[in-house]
């Protein structure tokens, strides 16, 4: 196995090799072990400073990154666009350059514009971790999803995964497709035609518009949220109609031939894409995903920080 990542940054899954992904997953095993110790903190990154720049709202990802950073003993500064000079008209580069002038080693950034992380990596001399850029990529989410599948099934290879819902606006979907395919899984997307992008066929994924057929095919269903904040045009008549066609309830789950595993990247709109009963059932690994998120982010930070000295 390789001992370092081929990339200086984590901008997306597309730029990672299969070996990179496997290195991150196996390193995360060790961090998961650390997280179950009485003392959950290790000193590795005690001389590293990390800035979390969130130009878009986030609960899980921000908390998860911050916890991972603190567990590694890094110094952490947080930045939220809503309470900053961005609202006074400062550009992205200026904001970040000013933060870096305060001697920051790693930048974790979420931004509403696709490509923001790549743009930053080209213009500043610091490690960048993409924590979600618009509808483009969300690499750590895909890594923790793959890790959770590997944890449950032993490996990702040859597993059948269906991603259900708003594929068009989802960075989770795109990163998951890249990650799962690199690890040898079969991927299907399922949703209304209006929420499946036209280019999807170029990614070598199956497309299905009937939820039952998709669920009968798969081992794992990743149920995405309808991104209400990104719907600039009406892509479906109503939430109620979406739920009737693509919402997963217990009745449907029980009627399937196989006992499939349910995943969700959060936040859940309970009663829309999945019912509470499904989310809290023994087939759901949603909370395992959250727990694994911290271990995955610790692994990414640990591997990337290794050559910041």
């Amino acid at each position, binding site marked *: 196995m390789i001992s370092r990542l081929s990339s200086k940054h984590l901008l997306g899954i597309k730029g990672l090799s299969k070996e990179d992904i496997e290195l991150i997953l196996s390193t995360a095993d*060790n961090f998961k072990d650390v997280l179950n110790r009485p003392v959950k903190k290790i000193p590795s990154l005690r001389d590293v400073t990390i800035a979390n720049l969130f130009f878009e709202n986030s609960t899980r990802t921000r908390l998860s990154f911050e916890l991972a950073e603190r567990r590694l003993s890094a110094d952490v500064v947080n930045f939220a666009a809503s309470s900053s000079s961005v609202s006074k008209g400062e550009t992205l580069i200026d904001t970040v350059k000013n933060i870096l002038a305060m001697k920051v080693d790693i930048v974790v950034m979420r931004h509403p514009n696709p490509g923001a992380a790549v743009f930053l990596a080209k213009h500043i001399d610091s490690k960048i971790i993409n924590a979600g850029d618009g509808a483009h990529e969300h690499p750590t989410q895909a890594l923790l999803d793959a890790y959770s599948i590997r944890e449950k099934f032993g490996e990702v290879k040859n597993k059948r995964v269906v991603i259900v819902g708003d594929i068009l606006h989802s960075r989770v979907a795109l990163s998951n497709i890249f990650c799962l395919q690199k690890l040898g899984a079969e991927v299907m997307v399922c949703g209304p035609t209006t929420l499946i992008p036209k280019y999807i066929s170029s990614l070598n994924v199956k497309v299905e518009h009937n939820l039952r057929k998709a669920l009968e095919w798969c081992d794992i269903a990743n149920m995405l949220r309808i991104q209400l904040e990104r719907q600039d045009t009406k892509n479906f008549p109503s939430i109620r109609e979406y739920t009737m066609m693509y919402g997963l309830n217990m009745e449907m789950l029980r009627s399937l031939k196989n006992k499939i595993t349910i995943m969700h990247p959060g936040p859940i709109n309970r009663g829309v894409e999945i019912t509470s009963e499904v989310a809290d059932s023994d087939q759901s690994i949603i909370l395992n995903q959250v727990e694994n998120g911290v271990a995955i982010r610790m692994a990414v930070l640990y591997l990337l920080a290794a050559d910041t000295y």
Partner: protein
Amino acid sequence: MQKRLLLNSKHFEITISRLCYQLIENHNDFSQSALIGLQPRGVFVARRIHRRLSEILNSEKILIGDLDITFHRDDYRRRDIILPSETKLNFSVDDRKVILIDDVLYTGRTIRAGMDALLDFVRAKKIELLTLVDRRYSRHLPIEPDYIGIQVDTILSEKVKVYWKETDGEDAAWLITEK
């Protein structure tokens, strides 16, 4: 490259047995003690000691664990990254006497990291150190072993390499001098 044999297979066996008897003098039946091998090479010594101790004491209850120290090393970001190994501690270390075990004691930095890693599993009653080979006069830290298999005087350009029947085909310790 020059090689000098420090321990052959027979001496190896005798040394392990002697270390076991020394341990028994201080730890009796091991009911309040635990052996912990440092990853990656110390775990071989620990397993061998554990096997011999179990034979001598006719006990199957002696506790043994593996401890990885990677995350507590002081050279992270100063050299090529070292990937972690597994930590296996299926018992509580709290209030136990722990014997940290490694194959070669050189600068003492690994042991310092090992003690820090161990203290993450709460408070051991006492920590002792056992090493199969002690390279004298080369410490960077004030750390000395409690149990020593063999002591050797070495210089910086020399290396001590321990081979194991389980992985290398035979038990032996060699002093290697790079020319």
